[in-house]
């Protein structure tokens, strides 16, 4: 870990809130991107992001510098997402949030014709809807594997489960998605 980061964390642990602002500026984009990949809508992503950093702040005194700081934040975010999804059961598709204009949409391929773009945009909705129909466990595990590229043993460590459990969720999620996306 960089000395500068260690200093920042120690300052936060000592009660310096401005140092926390610096930490949020450093990891904000990464954390928001991951939050969005879990939430699949901007409003929930922002909520998840806020809740993650508030928990990071509240628990920062328990951070012992035994892992990378981002890994620690990531773990809080993932568990929060996992539990939030668990609480809500199936995630609901919500209306665009008030800050939607502050998000940029990345087209799949800039060379695509307009009608192809429209097709892809419609397809994204289909994919998001399919993801939203997975159980919380299946969805979290699948996102961690597919979008985040985590190894099964790492996912098991993050979510405090056995590798066997993670494999079961991953396989079921994959089968279900194949079905929902009509590739079975």
């Amino acid at each position: 870990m960089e000395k500068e980061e260690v200093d920042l964390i120690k300052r936060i642990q000592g009660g310096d809130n401005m140092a926390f602002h610096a930490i949020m500026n450093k990891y904000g984009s990464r954390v928001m991107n991951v939050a969005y990949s879990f939430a699949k809508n901007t409003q929930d992503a922002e909520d998840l992001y806020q809740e993650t950093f508030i928990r990071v702040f509240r628990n920062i005194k328990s951070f012992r510098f035994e892992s990378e700081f981002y890994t620690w934040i990531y773990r809080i975010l993932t568990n929060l997402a996992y539990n939030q999804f668990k609480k809500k059961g199936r995630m609901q598709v919500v209306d665009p949030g008030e800050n939607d204009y502050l998000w940029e949409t990345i087209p799949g391929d800039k060379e695509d014709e307009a009608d192809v773009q429209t097709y892809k945009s419609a397809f994204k909705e289909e994919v998001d809807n399919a993801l939203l129909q997975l159980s919380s466990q299946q969805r979290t595990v699948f996102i961690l594997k597919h979008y985040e590229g985590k190894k099964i043993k790492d996912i098991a460590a993050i979510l405090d489960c056995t590798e066997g459990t993670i494999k079961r969720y991953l396989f079921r999620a994959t089968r279900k998605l194949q079905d929902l996306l009509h590739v079975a």
Partner: protein
Amino acid sequence: MKHDKKLDEMLMLYFFNELSEPKKKAFEIHLKECAHCQTELSKLKIMNSKLADTPDKVPTPELIEKVNMKIMAAIAPEPSNSLINKITDSFQEFYNSMLMAFTRPQYQFASMGATLIIGILIGKIWLSSGLQNDPEMLISLINRQSDLTAEQQSKFRNAFANYMIQSGDVELSELVQENPTDSQNDNMVMVNFKVKKDFALKGGLDNQAIQNMLRFSARHEKEPARRMRAVKLLSNSPQNKDIEETLIAVLLHDENESIRKEAMEAICQYNDSEESKDALKTVVLNDTSATLRIQAINFLKEIGSEDVIPIIALTSIRDNDEEVKNIAKNVLEELENSKSKE
């Protein structure tokens, strides 16, 4: 190799790149011969392409900053119990009570609590001894309240200004338009005003609000005469820890020797206090004034406990003033003699 159900799991693990190298090679051999696995793998790849090929959203830096500001507000320290901080929650109530406090006769402040009183005691303050302060003191007080947010400070100033304008006894001294060329900020003006009206508070030295004001005055007044008067009044106040702390701070930090001397004499009334004794030791070792060092040595001699001996011994060797050294030597002998008699 014939396909069986166990190979479904291998296929998934292969697809997700989770097989060890030997298992991967073994599975690839099977894959070449198994039509079922080939079909399933191609389906997985199609699913993968669908998932990967969708447009997505990314946050802009403006969004991150906006949400970060919300978080900073959420993690801001909880308001303390001080009444000043309650202005955020019930500002109108605060404002009304402030108006009442100013318009009522004396002795009506007690119900409002000491901290609030400090904040709103604006203008000149008369004690029976005639201590006077000016309105700058309030602004200084507000600025020194680190618990107040900028917004709270702004509200506080507004309330003060509103009251002063209602009282009709203010004088506008400066009117500044900030950034007149900036079209977005053309409504921003800054008004400086002088307060001519005096406010009075009477109370005994046992009144905590009075004590707090004196403590502030003793530490932060620019005029040495005012600091001196505050220290003298504090030395006549009923003893308590807060006053002792202030006197020690004056003794150790005030730049004026006479004020430090006054504070030291006041501190010597706190006979049983370890903090006061430590402060005297610090004076003996560090004060720039030889007179004060000698006086502190004499005070320590009166205390006479064993732990002062090393300090005086050190002074008798190290002090750069011969007179101080000699006095320290004499005191040291006296202390050692009285110790041997015991």
